[in-house]
């Protein structure tokens, strides 16, 4: 398994958390969300664009996001996403779960002190 595949496996399931986190800063549209995630992670996390839109629509169906269509100056209408109160609660839960998960992973992955 290559490093890319390992990264892909690790990223699996984190897309909703990343999307919610990015949208907590304000209203964004699809392409912007992908760019913002990439920027915030210093290019380390780049959610697959093919999985970004299903994740956005899934969160919208769950009531975490609300979408609004607005006119765009360079093409078709643009769909902006905004976090709802449900989404904010979901983000808090995800963050808490992720914090305990990453702490546990860090502890599990730590090399035992041989000294």
């Amino acid at each position, binding site marked *: 398994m290559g490093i890319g595949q390992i990264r892909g496996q690790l990223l699996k399931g984190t897309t909703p958390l990343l999307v919610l986190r990015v949208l907590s800063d304000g209203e964004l*549209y699809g392409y912007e969300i992908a760019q913002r995630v990439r920027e915030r992670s210093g290019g380390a996390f780049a959610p*697959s664009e*093919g999985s970004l839109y299903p994740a956005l629509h899934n969160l919208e169906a769950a009531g975490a996001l609300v979408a609004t269509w607005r006119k765009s100056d360079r093409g078709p209408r643009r769909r902006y996403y905004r976090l709802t109160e449900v989404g904010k609660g979901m983000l808090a839960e995800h963050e808490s779960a992720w914090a305990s998960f990453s702490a546990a992973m860090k502890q599990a992955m730590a090399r035992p002190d041989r000294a």
Partner: protein
Amino acid sequence: MLDLLLLLTLLAIAIWVDSRIQRHGRGAIPRSAGADLGPEAHEYLSRVDAGLELPARDREEIRSELLDHLIDSVAAIEAEGLDQERATREALARLGNPGELARAMNRAHRSTRRLLAGAGGGVFEAGVGAVVGIVFGWILALLCVVVAAILLTTILRPVTDLAAGFLPAFDTDPNATGANTALFAGVCAFAAWMAARRAVRTSHRLSRWSIGTVGRWWALVGGGGLALLVVFVVRGQQTWLAVPVELLIPVAFAFGALFKAHKTFSYAVPHSVLAIGAIGALVLPVVLLMGTSTSAGSYTYSYDSTEQERAWDSVAPAWGQRTYPGIVTTDTGVMLGSPVFDMTYTVEDPATLAGFHDLRFETWRAVHYAGAPAIAQEAMVPDPAYAAPYVTQPALVQDGRIRLHLDLGRVRTTSWLVFLTGVAADGQRYRLIRPEHYVSTFDGTVWEWLTAGS
């Protein structure tokens, strides 16, 4: 036959009206948007669209969103130094396989909340569709009846007169109530068709489940539920004319749902199955009606006094050269349209009955006969298919009166001839009163009708 033509006309109009409604509101997104992207991008979007099993509005929105994404993505990649063709290819590669993207979008659009909304909305819309269908159906039915009546009595008169000699007679039920039930059932079948289509459309739109799945579920659950309701629960006046039309209600609902699903997506049910089912559903009432017109052919001969007398005499010859003794019928609450009849006969001259014994009322199944003898009422004669009366009851003279209480129970036959008979000194049984013609109705469910005696 008229109600069948009426139903066919109503169904055709419903399909046409619905197809007109469906054409509205499509193509909300201008196709000129993203025209500079090149055919590869549009081909990709079309492949995504083909895999989506979502309402048209959702599909348009997804297409628009992905198009917007591609415009941004291609521009960004071009800024990195790639030409447009390679940039487009790279942007499409980042979006991944269009089929997988479509499947993921289908899954993303479905949630328990939307499923419940789809079910609830579908039920509500079915109710609205039923009300609209009943109102619209009645208006159409009345218009069709008026138009048919005008045509049949004017332009088509020579044709109907000519055809009358060849067509089987469907006049098995002279009771107008049965025709009304059939007409109302026909309107309900039309309403069921409308309700199913609206329910499928709304459930599909709200739940985001594929219209094929939604259509099949509505056909199964709605059609099945209506079938149970129509056959076992709804009570009414049943006739051979009304029952097949009533059975058409769940069939119309199921086919309405399947047709609605089938028109948009071409995988629900093959066209041939739908066509055979629809033809079967429409032909069934005719077959059933033809099957019930057992006695219609027996009365096509012209009036013949000898045969007529023989028919009557096979029941019981009139006593005293077709004159009756002094017995007067007094109406004491005869209920037309009920299986229970009460009648009191006043014996004005008791001496006239002195020569008879074993007095009894005989109730015979009656059929319509245009050339019926003058002694019968309403051109009815005893049905020659039966050699014995349906029921006999002893008649007792008390205080110069004879009371008849007749309970026909649940029997499909609707026309009856009732008369008093008695055995004279010569050992022969004679009719002693003018035959009374009663019309009964069958009040009950379709199931009770189907399992009742004939």
